[in-house]
C-alpha cells in the first residue's frame, strides 16, 4: 500500500489523519452515549425507589460521609481541570505540561479511588454491605439512624443502589486510570503533538464523562434528604 509520506500513526485503512481523528472522536462520543444508557437503568431504579421509600432512602443517605463525598467531588472536578490542561498542552505541543498534567490527573483519580475505598471500608465496618455480598457478614441497619417510617429492608435497598452505582462508577474510574497510564507512557515518549493528539483528546472525553456521572451521583446519593436528619 502506497502511503505518500504519511504520519507514522496513520492506520492503513484511513485516507489521512484528519479522517482518523474524526473517526476516533465520533467513536468515543458514541461510546459515551452507550454509557449514558448503561447508567440510565440505574438512575431510573434510583428515582423510582427514592420516590417510593423517601424516609428510608433519606435515613440511609444521611449515614453516608458528607465530608468524604465532598472531598471526592472536589478531587474529581480538579482532575477534570488538569485533564483539560493536558489536552490543551498536547494540542499546543507542550510536552512537559502534557506529562505533568496527565500525571496530576492520574494522581487525583487514584486519590478519588482511595477515598472511595475508605468509604467502602467504613460501610463494611458498619455492617452496611447489603445482602449476602459479603458472605457471613449480613446487612445490619442498626447503626443507621432511622427516620420515622423507614423500613430497614428499604435502607438495605438504598445501600444496594449506592454500591451498584458508585461501584460501577469506580470500575469506570479504574478503566480511566488504566487508560491515562497508557497515554502518559506514550506522552512521555513524545508521541503526541499538534499534529496528532487524538488519543489524549478522546481519553479526556472519557475522563470528563466519568466525572460528570459523579456530579450526578453525589447530590443524589449524599445530599438529598439531609434536612430530614433531625
Amino acid at each position, binding site marked *: 500500500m502506497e502511503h505518500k509520506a504519511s504520519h507514522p500513526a496513520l492506520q492503513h485503512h484511513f485516507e489521512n489523519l484528519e*479522517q482518523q481523528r474524526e*473517526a476516533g472522536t*465520533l*467513536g468515543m462520543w458514541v461510546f459515551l452515549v*452507550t454509557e449514558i*444508557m448503561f447508567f440510565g437503568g440505574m438512575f431510573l431504579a434510583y428515582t423510582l425507589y427514592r420516590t417510593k421509600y423517601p424516609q428510608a432512602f433519606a435515613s440511609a443517605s444521611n449515614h453516608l460521609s458528607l465530608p468524604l463525598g465532598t472531598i471526592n467531588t472536589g478531587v474529581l472536578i480538579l482532575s477534570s481541570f488538569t485533564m483539560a490542561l493536558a489536552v490543551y498542552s498536547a494540542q499546543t505541543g507542550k510536552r512537559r505540561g502534557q506529562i505533568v498534567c496527565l500525571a496530576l490527573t492520574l494522581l487525583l483519580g487514584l486519590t478519588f479511588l482511595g477515598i472511595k475505598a475508605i468509604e467502602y471500608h467504613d460501610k463494611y465496618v458498619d455492617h452496611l454491605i447489603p445482602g449476602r455480598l459479603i458472605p457471613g457478614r449480613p446487612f445490619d441497619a442498626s447503626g443507621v439512624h432511622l427516620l420515622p417510617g423507614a423500613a430497614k429492608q428499604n435502607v438495605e435497598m438504598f445501600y444496594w443502589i449506592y454500591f451498584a452505582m458508585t461501584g460501577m462508577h469506580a470500575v469506570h474510574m479504574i478503566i480511566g486510570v488504566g487508560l491515562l497510564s497508557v497515554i502518559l507512557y506514550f506522552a512521555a515518549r513524545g508521541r503526541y503533538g499538534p499534529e496528532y493528539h487524538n488519543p489524549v483528546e478522546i481519553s479526556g472525553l472519557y475522563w470528563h464523562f466519568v466525572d460528570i456521572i459523579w456530579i450526578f451521583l453525589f447530590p443524589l446519593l449524599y445530599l438529598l434528604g439531609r434536612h430530614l436528619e433531625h
Partner: protein
Amino acid sequence: MKAPETFEIPAAARVNYINAQYGLKSWLLTKDHKRIALLYLGSITFFFFIGGLYAMMIRLELLTPQGDFLSSTTYNKVFTQHGIIMVFFFLIPSIPATLGNFLVPMMIGAKDLAFPRINLLSWYIYLLGGVITIYALLAGGVDTGWTFYAPYSTTFSNSYVIAAGLGIFISGFSSILTGLNFIVTIHTMRAPGMTWFRLPLFIWAHYATSLVMILGTPVIAITILLLAFERLAHVGIFDPAVGGDPVLFQHLFWFYSHPAVYIMVLPSMGVVSELIANFSRKNIFGYKFVAFSSLAIAVFGFLVWGHHLFVASQSVYAGMIFSFLSFAVAIPSAIKVFNWTATLYKGSISFDTPMLYALGFIGLFTIGGMTGLFLASLAIDVHVSDTYFVVAHFHYIMVGGALLGYLGGLHYWWPKISGRMYPEGWGRFSALVVFVGFNLTFLPQFVAGYLGMPRRYHAYPPEFQVFNVLSSAGASILGVGLLIPLIYLVWSMRYGKRAEANPWHLPGLEWRTASPPPTENFLITPVVTWEAYEFAPPEEMQVIGKFREGTDLDAPIIGKS
C-alpha cells in the same frame, strides 16, 4: 486457489482476502472485516443449529397433548434455551455481524471498518459470551424463559440463571461495539462522492440498526447485571420480597428487547431493498422514504415497549399511549412494503434464489406485521398475549422476516464472499421448501393462539392437538429446508462454479471489485459518480461487469468511463 483457465486475469486480482494469508493464526488475529465476517458466519451458524435442535425438541414434545417426550423441567429449559440462543446468539448478530461486517465498508468504498481491532474484539466478546452460555446449558440449563422475568429468575428458579445471564451480558458488548463501528464508519469513511443519498439502502438499514444497538443494548446489560447480583446476593430492586418491583424489570427488559426486534428485522429489510432493486434492475421506488422509514422504525421502536405490559398491571392510560405508538410504528414498515412492491413495476425481474427469498420476505413480513397490529390493539392483546398467537406473530417477523432476509442476502453475496456460485437449482428448491415449511409451522399457531392456547405449555388440552401436529409437521419440512443450504453452501466453497466479479451485473460498489475481494477491498479508492441503483445504459455496461461475450474482467475498472 487456482485461477480459471479460460480468462486472463490481472495478477493483482489473484490475491484475495481468503488466500492473502494462511494458517489459523492469520484468521484468529485478523483485522480484516471480511475475515471477521466469516468468523461470525461460522459461529452464528453453529448457534443456529443448536437453537434449531431445541426447536425440534419443542415440536416433538408438542406433537401430543400429554407431556410424554420430555419432563416439564426439561421442556422449560429447552424452550428457554431455544429463545436465548436464537435471539442473542443468532438473530441479533446474524445480518449485521456477517453480511453487514462484510459489506458495509465495501458498499461505501472503504478499506475496512473504522476500528478493525474493536471489530475483532467484538467477535471474541461474542464468543466468550457464547461459551459461557453454552456452559450454562451443559451444566444444567436455564429455565426462566428468554425473558428472565423477575422474581422467578431472581428467587424461584433452580437453574443456571447467572451463568446464562452473564453470557448474554457479555455478548451484548459485541453488539454495542459492532453498532459503534458501523455508525462511525458510515459517518466518516464514505468514499469520495458517496453522499448520504447515494448510499445503498442496506447501509441506511444498518445505520438505523446500529442506533438501536448502541442505545438499547446497554440497558439490557445493566438490567441483566442487576438481576444476576440480585440472585447472587439476595438483595435488589426487582423481587417484591426485598421491597422491589418485578414490573420494573419488565420495563427495563422490554426497553431493549422490543427494539431488539428491530435489530433483527431492520438489516433484513436492508437486504430486501437491495434484492428487490437489483433483481428487478430498477432503482428503488421512493428511495428517501425507504431510507427514512428505517430511521423512523429505529426511533419509534424505542417508544413502544409498553405494549408488552398491557396485562401486567400497567396503567390504562399508559396502555393507550403505548398502543397508539405501536400502531404508529407500523406505518414506516408499511411504507417499505409498498415501495418494494412499486419497485417491481416495469422492472426486469429475474427469479434467482435471493429474489425468491426477498419475495417470500415481503409476503411473510406483511402477515407478521399485520398480526402485530392485533397485539398492538389493546382489547385483542388482552386475549391473545402470552398465547401461541404471539409465538406465531414473532416467528413471522423473526423467521419469515429476519431469517429469510438473511438467507436471501447470504445467497446474493455468496459469490462475493466465497468467490463461488451456489447451485441455483438447489437454491430455488430449498427456498420453496423453507417457504412452505415455515407457513405450515406457524399459520396454525395463530389459530391455536386465538383459541386460547397459552405459550410455554409443556402439556396442553387435547383440542389444540390438531394445530400442534400441523405445526410439528411444518417444522420438520422447515428443518430440511434449512439443512439443504448448509450442505450446498459448504459444498460450493470447494466445488461451486467460480464466480465472476459481478455475476449479477449490478452497479453497487461491492460488485466493482474482484470476487473474492482483495484484502483492502479496492485497489484504488473509488470515486462515486452515480446514484444508488443506477443501472448503466448498454454502452457503458462493460465497466460494470460482463454483459457481452469475452469481456469478463475479474478486476473491474473503477468508476464509469
